[in-house]
């Protein structure tokens, strides 16, 4: 399972634990599963957990950007959790750090 979704109705939070390699081949299924959870829960915070992601190319940026736009339409926020050095590097190149909060799990509250 490349995505495990945890829904917290009280906090209006959806957390998506991604795992494995995020490339063009695998990103589609991840996007779809996350979008289904957003549509069902209409959360105010989407947490994308990259702790178990071993590889990511710019397809992962498309994934985060698309979810950012979707959450913005819901007046919600996106938080990127537990990215490795490699993933941070790819995200920084895209300026994603300016759109979504990025940090480790202990700083979950950071605003976008």
């Amino acid at each position, binding site marked *: 399972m490349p995505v495990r979704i945890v829904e917290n109705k009280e906090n209006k939070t959806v957390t998506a634990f991604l795992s494995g*390699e995020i*490339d*063009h*081949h695998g*990103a*589609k299924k991840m996007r779809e599963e996350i979008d289904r959870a957003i549509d069902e829960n209409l959360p105010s915070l989407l947490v994308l957990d990259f702790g178990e992601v071993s*590889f*990511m*190319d*710019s*397809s992962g*940026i*498309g994934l985060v*950007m*698309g979810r950012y736009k979707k959450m913005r339409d819901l007046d919600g926020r996106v938080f990127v959790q537990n990215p490795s*050095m*490699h993933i941070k590097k*790819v995200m920084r*190149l*895209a300026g994603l750090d300016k759109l979504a909060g990025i940090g480790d799990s202990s700083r979950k509250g950071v605003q976008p």
Partner: protein
Amino acid sequence: MKVLNEMKITFPSKSVNEGYARLAVAAFASQLDPPVDELADVKTAVSEAVTNCIVHAYPDKVGKIEICARIFENGEFYVKVKDYGCGIEDVKKAMEPLFTTCKNGERAGLGFAVMESFMDKLSVRSKVGRGTCVVMRKKFSQRG
């Protein structure tokens, strides 16, 4: 500069091969005993180049992708990713960050930006209707 070692791989432009291609190149580059993060840079850059062939070069068919990797005497790593697909009309424009011809929002337009920033050198040659050839080079830092 003398070539110490060279490998070539060919495979069809199916997205399932993206993982195979970057692993095969990384396995070869490992001979230079690169730092882990620099090997990840190469994997990422190769993943971008191969994905471009699959998504852009052969949009509605399965075509041939060729990769050639070399290790030079001075320790430099070279990798070429080549397709015989649609080609790029304006290479300079295509290489601008955030530029993409992809309409469905799936691509971020950052493929070339990743290749450029993660490798030392990037050169792109393309001919409309003939195909595209991307050459990248990187010198790994010494370990220890």
